[in-house]
């Protein structure tokens, strides 16, 4: 059910990219799509009633076997969290480049409207 909502967010972002005419709105639509995919990735690792995958000082004092058992039985999956960190950094770089190209296009063409930025045809 929650996965379907995530997918709905992705579709909203895709709708923005396809339909909107302002350059900046297209970039925002792209950002929404990337958020939706990151959200989906984190939700994959969730375990109902799970704890954060962090080992504290109290756990270590209780002994190594107890630590491992507690981690495997109770913690949510930490691998998707690492994947999402990487994905956030990548989309940061991509968005920075997109915005700087938008600013340059505004300098050259004088407008943000994509129906007027159409010198390349054929």
């Amino acid at each position, binding site marked *: 059910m929650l996965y379907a909502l995530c997918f709905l967010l992705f579709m909203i972002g895709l709708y923005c990219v396809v339909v909107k005419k302002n350059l900046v709105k297209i970039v925002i639509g792209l950002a929404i*799509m990337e958020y939706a995919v990151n959200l*989906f*990735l984190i939700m994959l690792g969730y375990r109902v009633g799970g704890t954060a995958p962090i080992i504290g000082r109290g756990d270590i004092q209780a002994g190594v076997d107890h630590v491992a058992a507690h981690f495997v039985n109770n913690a949510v999956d930490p691998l998707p969290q690492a*994947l999402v960190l990487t994905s956030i950094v990548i989309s940061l770089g991509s968005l920075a*480049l997109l915005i700087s*190209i938008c600013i*340059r*296009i505004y300098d050259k063409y004088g407008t943000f409207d994509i129906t007027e930025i*159409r010198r390349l045809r*054929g």
Partner: protein
Amino acid sequence: MSRALPAFVVVPLVAAFLLPVLGSKGKAAATLLANLVTIALLALAVACVGHSGVYEVGTWPSHIGIVLVLDGLTSLMLLAVNVVSAAAMLFSVRYMEQYTAKPKYLSLFLLMVAGMNGVVITGDIFNLFVFLEIASIASYALVGFGCEHEELEASFKYMVLGSVASSLILLGIALVYGNTGALNMAYTAKVIQQTGINAGLAFAMSLFIVGFGLKAALVPFHAWLPDAHPSAPAPISAMLSGVLIKALGIYALSRLVFNVFGVSIPVSWVLIALGVLSMVVGVFLAVGQWDFKRLLAYHSISQMGYVVLGIGLGALILAQGGNPLWASLAILGGLFHLVNHAVFKSLLFLTSGSVEMATGTRQLKQMGGLVERMPYTRTACTIASASIAGVPPFNGFWSKLILVIAAVQAGFFGLAAVTVLVSLVTLLSFLKVQRYVFLGELPEELQDTRESKDSMLIAMLFLAALCLLMSLLILVPSLRVAVLQPAVDVLVEGVNHSIRVANL
């Protein structure tokens, strides 16, 4: 030799971060370093042919760490990527003098090479995505490098479509992880072989086809390519059209279809349909173009259709349980055409860059009679045009012949006929290019054009010589067995290959 695998990624990365510091001291030092790096990578790629192995990054065991894999398909793709990047870097020594900020260009170029090498050698699906993004973001910046009106517009279009493709691929990777619990390609293959393909994995496969199809510019998803490739500087067009759409799009797709998911009949038919559509639409849109580089860009779409057709045909024959010899032949045709196209298409883009630098225009109707002023460029362009049109004895002829034979043997006579027809129309459009650019009379404005100089000539002649020599790869049996056959075997063996390589 698999111990040298990280060097393919680390050496260009470190050089890319060294270049802005060196560049403030002098452009010559930066250019020299960049060229040394690409030539060293080419030597390393040639040395890796015929070896195979697995490299565990960080000494983590392979079920919890990232692995780098060297096998037949990887060494073929490494050769293709590094040959084209060495030639394009050599060409840009002279060509990029007309732009400012050359050290930044070299740094971005090396980042793109590092990303492409990483895509080809990795054995982990998320690592594939990370390197795909490194190469893509570097190429978005390079397409808009000149900062004129059209280049920025083309770069924006390319970026938006490329980012949509990356989001779709990441969603597919998330679905694969959710359904199998592993990200390593071999482990995923084993789990999929045991549990079969459920609805989630089928949806993930369709997301991968759309995402990698967008990166490879197959036909319903090709809208960015005719704008992006002409607007980029010529060596970047050569890299984009020559290796980026192949390493990021077609290599990744075939790796996932053959070695991770396993071939199935619906996926093969989709690939064949996309291939035929790309071939036909690409070539008919190309014939009517009057801009030199735009014409070449549309031809890229069409030739990509050939490669996908070959791979799809092989997948269909394997999935239907037919004769593995014909499947192997179809895949051989597809892969050999991929490598050939890398060489002759980048040569065509480099010659168009040379013509553009000399005459200042890309429109065919404003050129003419350049054969008197630019004889070497003319020779290189003629060799490349003959290769792409499929004239014997150049390399394009052999790969198209193998594809036609495979199609006929498998019983698809319609596909063979379409292949031959598209090849004839390609020949027609390149005769048009030859007539308008080189033959005819020299117009008034172009009376004092001169031939390109040193490094541009060396790069073009190197690739032209390769076009001739690569026919030997298929004709001489020992070379074929050493270079091409291992790549074909990797794909034909499919899922069992990944499981065997990882010792599962």
